[in-house]
């Protein structure tokens, strides 16, 4: 179809009809030449635009003439497209705003198509321009509302997602993705999402439940832990509901994930703190019960249940509970006091015997305390009970022991009294009162201090001054008091008593009172003379016994030098009687006789000294010197016997008062014993002499490594040791010597073999 812009008069009837059709259609029609110059613009268009066709074609500085009517924001885009189409012959299609004659812009869709000649050159463009303003505005509105929705979705503090009806992830909100640290590409396979993002402990259940819900079309609600971007897991509640079409078929699932981590943690903490509280209650050695304000049991601690018996069935009122557990004798009092307390709303305490699981009763102390709200209304009563059975029993035992003690004091065959720190009597046993003929209240007529009057009245006048002086001294210094004096009996007769008193002190050392006892020693004193005689007899007897025991040993010691003396005397006589007399030999033997006789005399004098028990010859000596000297004396013998003598003396060992010769004899004896004991031992023969402080005494040990033999029972009897030259006295004498020094001598078997002889001597200067 060729449309020209010549006068309408030239248009054929057919063309006229076509034109009429075109011009009556809603919308605008146009045609243009290959250069884009409009060749036709429908009259309605021109009317709408309020422009002539030429205006549309009149170019302005290389711009299209229709620039005037196209919205400036759209022009460049539209013009570029139009130029492109003019050049290539592509179909033209553009949406843009056109200015109506009244200046209002409306959206149009402009479409054009080129027609070509046989050479392929563009001959003419034909196009339509359709008003799409309403449509366009509706689209914009939709887009805007969608944007707003998206904003809302992105803004609400929940994570939104959707599933397809088959359970594939269809959508995940931006917030959700940010939270999880994933991108849109990473979700899709639901199983994979679950595996990757749900806590491994929760994932199987989430997957199973979700699949189940999707299959059944039921609402999915679940709490689980999701992994967040940071890798931490966060408690989440996921909810998903299906949306159905009018036929009831599920078209989509929409879900939200709500962060409930804080809530879960708070709940967890609450549970923990409740459990802790319960554990604490159960751990405390108290039983806890609680009652509602109307006295119905609401709680019992585990300990209580364990202790008292099978779980108590709730609810039970207070009276039933108490009737069940309290001793029948205590029930009425306990119940009454509790009910009074409940009624008054004041705390109360009950002590009673409570039955336990095994049926036995134990004393307990139960304390009840109300819990009030801010308004002061009682919400709950709490009762805590503690076991005081041992306390109660101890108290009972104490009362009993007090009673026994009192009885003891009263029945003891002694006169007992107590006085205040200042000496005033505060207690006299019945026996003392009976003896004196009056109790504490009997004296003190003249207003004098009670002590003075008491002493005056009961102490023999000859002893009074001494008693007052000594007793006063003890009271002043706190030193124990002991005194023998005569005490006046109720019948006026004075009898000898020994009074002893000692202070009783409190924890701070302050004197609380003086406790004293008077013993009747009248018979004793009278018998003293006889006793002395008896003691003397006894002493002589024991001395005689000792002599008998030692005589054999002494004989042995003296016999050796005597034997030598006798033989030497004969020899001497013989030398002198010879013809000619051998004076030289006689002299030598005479000298030996003198020497041996002195040795014998020495033995005798030492033994006599032993029995004298005198400490005249004692001097304070360091032990080390004595031991070293002893070793020197025995050095040759030790060498001959192949014995090594080790000496180990503690540094700073206190010196000891001793008879040097005697103690040396003891040491020689013990060392020689040790050497002899090791005579049969193969290998190393070592003798260890140790000296050490042991409390207030110096302890000397002589340890040998002799054979593994039990020590003979009679080891301390004479002749256990063999004789040697010098002072090899029996162990019996050693023991006598040590004991005369105030020490002890004994023997111990060593492990594994050998024996140790140990003696002690009091350290220090005392003889």
């Amino acid at each position, binding site marked *: 179809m060729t449309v020209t812009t010549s006068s309408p008069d030239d248009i054929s009837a057919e063309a006229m009809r076509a034109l009429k059709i075109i011009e009556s259609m809603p919308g605008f029609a146009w045609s243009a030449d290959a250069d884009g110059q409009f060749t036709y613009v429908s009259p309605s268009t021109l009317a709408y635009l309020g422009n002539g066709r030429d205006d549309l074609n009149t170019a302005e500085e290389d711009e299209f003439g229709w620039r005037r009517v196209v919205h400036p924001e759209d022009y460049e885009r539209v013009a570029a497209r139009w130029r492109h189409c003019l050049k290539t012959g592509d179909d033209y299609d553009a949406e843009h705003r056109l200015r109506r004659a009244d200046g209002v812009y409306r959206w149009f869709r402009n479409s054009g198509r080129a027609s070509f000649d046989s050479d392929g050159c563009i001959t003419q463009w034909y196009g339509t321009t359709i008003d799409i303003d309403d449509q366009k505005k509706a689209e914009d509105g939709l887009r805007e509302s969608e944007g707003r929705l998206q904003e809302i979705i992105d803004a609400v503090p929940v994570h939104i997602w959707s599933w397809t009806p088959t359970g594939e992830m269809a959508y995940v909100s931006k917030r959700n993705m940010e939270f999880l640290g994933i991108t849109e590409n990473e979700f899709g396979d639901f199983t994979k999402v679950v595996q990757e993002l749900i806590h491994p402990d929760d994932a199987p259940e989430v997957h199973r439940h979700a699949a189940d819900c999707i299959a059944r079309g039921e609402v999915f609600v679940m709490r689980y832990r999701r992994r967040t971007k940071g890798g931490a897991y966060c408690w989440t509640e996921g909810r998903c509901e299906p949306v159905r079409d009018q036929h009831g078929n599920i078209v989509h699932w929409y879900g939200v994930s709500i962060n409930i981590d804080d809530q879960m943690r708070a709940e967890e903490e609450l549970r923990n703190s409740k459990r802790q509280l319960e554990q604490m209650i159960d751990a405390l050695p108290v039983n806890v019960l609680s009652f509602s304000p109307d006295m119905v049991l609401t709680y019992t601690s585990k300990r209580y249940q364990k202790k008292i018996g099978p779980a108590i069935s709730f609810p039970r009122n207070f009276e039933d509970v108490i009737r069940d557990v309290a001793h029948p004798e205590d029930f009425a009092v306990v119940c009454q006091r509790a009910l009074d307390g409940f009624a008054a709303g004041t705390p109360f305490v009950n002590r009673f015997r409570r039955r336990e699981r095994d049926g036995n009763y134990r004393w307990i102390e139960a304390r009840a305390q109300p819990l009030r709200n801010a308004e002061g209304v009682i919400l709950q009563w709490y009762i805590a009970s503690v076991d005081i059975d041992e306390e109660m029993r101890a108290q009972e035992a104490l009362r009993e022991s007090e009673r026994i003690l009192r009885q003891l004091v009263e029945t003891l065959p002694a006169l007992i009294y107590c006085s205040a720190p200042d000496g005033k009597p505060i207690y006299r046993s019945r026996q003392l009162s009976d003896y004196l003929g009056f109790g504490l209240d009997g004296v003190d007529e003249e207003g004098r201090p009670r002590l003075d009057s008491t002493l005056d009245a009961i102490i023999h006048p000859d002893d009074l001054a001494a008693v007052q002086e000594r007793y006063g001294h003890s009271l002043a210094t706190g030193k124990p008091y002991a005194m023998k004096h005569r005490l006046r009996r109720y019948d006026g007769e004075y009898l000898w008593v020994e009074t002893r008193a000692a202070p009783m002190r409190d924890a701070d050392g302050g004197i609380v009172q003086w406790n004293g006892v008077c013993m009747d020693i009248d018979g004793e004193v009278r018998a003293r003379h006889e006793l002395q005689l008896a003691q003397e007899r006894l002493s002589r007897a024991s001395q005689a016994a000792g002599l008998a025991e030692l005589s054999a040993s002494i004989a042995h010691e003296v016999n050796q030098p005597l034997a*030598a003396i*006798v*033989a030497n005397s*004969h020899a001497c006589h*013989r030398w002198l009687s*010879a013809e000619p007399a051998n004076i030289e030999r006689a002299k030598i033997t005479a000298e030996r006789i003198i020497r041996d006789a002195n040795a014998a005399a020495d033995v005798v004098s030492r033994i006599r000294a032993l029995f004298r028990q005198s400490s005249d010859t004692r001097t304070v000596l360091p032990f080390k010197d004595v031991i070293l000297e002893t070793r020197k004396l025995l050095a040759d013998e030790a060498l001959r016997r192949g014995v090594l003598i080790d000496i180990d003396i503690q540094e700073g060992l206190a010196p000891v008062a001793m008879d040097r010769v005697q103690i040396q004899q003891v040491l020689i004896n013990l060392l020689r014993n040790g050497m002899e004991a090791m005579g049969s031992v193969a290998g190393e023969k070592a003798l260890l002499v140790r000296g050490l402080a042991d409390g207030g005494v110096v302890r000397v040990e002589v340890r040998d490594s002799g054979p593994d033999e039990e020590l003979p029972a009679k080891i301390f009897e004479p002749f256990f040791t*063999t*004789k040697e030259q010098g002072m090899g006295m029996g162990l019996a004498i050693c023991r006598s010597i040590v004991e005369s020094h105030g020490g002890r001598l004994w023997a111990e078997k060593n492990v594994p073999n050998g024996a140790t002889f140990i003696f002690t001597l009091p350290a220090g200067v005392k003889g």
Partner: protein
Amino acid sequence: MTTGNYIVFIVDDDARVREALGELLAAHGIKARVFASAGEYITAEKPDMPACLILDVELPDINGLDLQGQIAEGDHPPIVFLTGHGDIPSSVRAIKHGAVDFLTKPCDVDALLAAIGVAVARDKEGRLQRAELGVLKERYHGLTPREREVLPLVVSGLLNKQAAAELGISEVTLQIHRRNVMHKMAAASLADLVRIAGQLDIPVTHSRMQAGGDL
């Protein structure tokens, strides 16, 4: 002052006593050697001459009585015990086991010298006997094995015929052996040979009557 051809051994652990006894014996012209312990005495090399042992009971290494028991097996000089504290059981035991005397210190010197005299005499006698026995033993060792078999049969009083049958040899052969035995043992008669066999502790093993059962 006699200078006897004998020696006295003194064992005592007390040096003073050893010294004094040595001096006493020296004054009497008696040779003496002293020892401080039994061990010293046993291990010492002693001259081969008549001797006497003066032994203390209490010694550091061994009791004198036990030493007596130990040396009883061999030839040893007679013992005179000297003790610081003699008790009856010890002295009985000592004498029973052949001690010459058991003296208590300090002892009577005459008693000691007398005991030494007895002991030395006893030792001389013993030595003489031991010497004679030694000669006989030497002669006995000179016999051939067959002759040693013949000797007990002859001294048992078997007839030549019986002895020959016992050994499964001819009577003539036996007679030759018998003559050789008599000669080698220097026996003047059969009675002499019987005495010598007794000294040598050769037992009488056969009786003529028992052996005669074969007749």
